[in-house]
């Protein structure tokens, strides 16, 4: 059963490979690239939220760390893009390790606010430093190849997705993580080290997020604290995950596509009402919790897999 679903995902992935062959409009390809980026950010958010049961309102911090590390290495140290983006992912992973060790001891709700405070603190640091350009942001060398960025973004997002599929749905790691989510004390008695598992999940979520941040920086050629470290990255990832279906890998993908499509249309026709978007995001989050507790995915007819919640 699961393999059939995996096959579906591989097919969908193959279809996305063909997008640049069909879409020649630069603007539209940008939209597709960003959609893929949000799929990546939603899936990485869900590793911690859905599988480990921890809301990370500092998701933007890892995105921003990746973006800034890449930008600094490319601009100030003359690195090539690929190693710089990889370093961005490593920096985000390191950040997760350092931040996760004390904060993951907190109960879920406190963790959420602690990571939120962390994201804001990092934003402050970036604003203060010279190497990041402070509030003026940083400009990266421009590479004007929409196709290149589409494929890079797609590569990062799909490698992340399939790696997660293997780790969370096939390998023992996913089940162990769910055990910790369901009952941390009970999991300990079964030989599981909850802190270690949670930190591993945190790093697993942070590294691809950092790489995506790095790709984003090179792609848009200009980053500043608001665009990479603002609350919107975390808020939007959350709404995609909750709306699509938390604790699954497919749910966030569906959520990301639907919410991003909505956002694009909204921005195209109602860009004067930026705040309205915030209201809608909030309403969708609160409304999903009340009316769609399993997200859009929960509304789809289920295959007969007794007791197996994917």
């Amino acid at each position, binding site marked *: 059963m699961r393999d059939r679903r995996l096959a579906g995902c591989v097919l969908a992935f193959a279809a996305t490979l063909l997008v640049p062959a069909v879409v020649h409009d630069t603007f539209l390809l940008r939209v597709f690239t960003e959609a893929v980026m949000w799929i990546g950010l939603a899936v990485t958010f869900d590793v911690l939220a859905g599988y480990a049961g921890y809301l990370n309102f500092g998701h933007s911090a890892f995105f921003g760390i990746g973006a800034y590390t890449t930008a600094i290495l490319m601009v100030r140290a003359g690195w090539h893009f690929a190693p710089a983006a990889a370093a961005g992912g490593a920096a985000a992973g390191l950040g997760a390790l350092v931040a996760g060790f004390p904060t993951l001891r907190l109960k879920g709700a406190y963790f959420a606010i602690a990571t939120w405070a962390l994201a804001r603190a990092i934003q402050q640091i970036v604003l203060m430093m010279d190497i990041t350009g402070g509030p003026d942001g940083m400009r990266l060398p421009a590479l004007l190849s929409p196709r290149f960025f589409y494929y890079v973004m797609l590569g990062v997002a799909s490698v992340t997705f399939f790696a997660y599929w293997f780790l969370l749905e096939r390998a023992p790691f996913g089940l162990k993580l769910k055990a910790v989510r369901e009952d941390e004390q009970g999991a*300990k008695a079964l030989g599981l080290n909850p802190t270690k598992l949670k930190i591993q999940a945190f790093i697993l979520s942070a590294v691809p997020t950092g790489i995506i941040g790095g790709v984003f920086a090179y792609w848009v050629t200009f980053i500043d604290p608001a665009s990479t470290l603002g609350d919107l990255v975390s808020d939007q990832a959350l709404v995609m995950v909750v709306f699509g279906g938390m604790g699954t890998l497919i749910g966030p993908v569906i959520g990301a596509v639907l919410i991003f499509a909505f956002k694009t249309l909204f921005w195209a026709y109602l860009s004067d009402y930026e705040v309205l978007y915030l209201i809608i995001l909030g309403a969708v989050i609160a409304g999903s919790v009340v009316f769609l507790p399993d997200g859009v995915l929960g509304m789809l007819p289920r295959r007969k897999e007794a*007791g197996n*919640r994917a």
Partner: protein
Amino acid sequence: MPEPILVLENVTKNFGGLTAVNEVSFQVRPKEIMGLIGPNGAGKTTLFNVISGYYAPSRGKVLFRGKDIGGKTPYALAGRGIGRTFQVVKPFPGLSVLENVIIASFLRHPKRARAEEHAWKILEFTELADRAHQSASSLTLAGRKRLEIGKALALEPTFLLLDEVVAGLNPTEVDHTIELILKLRDQGITILIVEHIMRVIMRISDRLVVLNFGQKIAEGPPGEVAKDPGVVEAYLGVEKA
């Protein structure tokens, strides 16, 4: 006499000003069933939590197979062969019965396929195989208690702590669980069991330790302990109150 598998030496556990377990010492020998009884609040569950690593003892020593394990984490102790159940059963409610047992099986069988194979054996043994794909929260109380034992067994422990595994079951289910426990002993697992139902504890225990107000007030074969005046008073005293 064989080397004891578990030795408690003057184990004390304080919570702030409250002494929940006070200078308790006893030994458990390999392959025996040791019963731990006492009125409510006597410190039985606290003692379980100390032995299984959930609390570090405030004073005293816990030796498991000759090594001091006081203050070791529960997951490290699971690795060393101590399995336990919880009085308030702790299935992972959102996961299936099979998945619950697979998670425990990972300890000895890190590969998913091997763990699943092992989990099926445990489910056969605990007679839960026909409910393997149900969600754990859908089981009856008896089923959940059996799952709790199954999860502890999946760890392939040499020493098993059972915390009120028959409380709340009907007589048929009780007999069923007793059979299961005796089978485990025959497989060579040493068992320390807390139980309120006297009929059960008298029948299966080789020896008993009695706690009252955190202190050990008696130790010995069930027949002797039952006649001990201190024990009788502790129980009657509680009933009168």
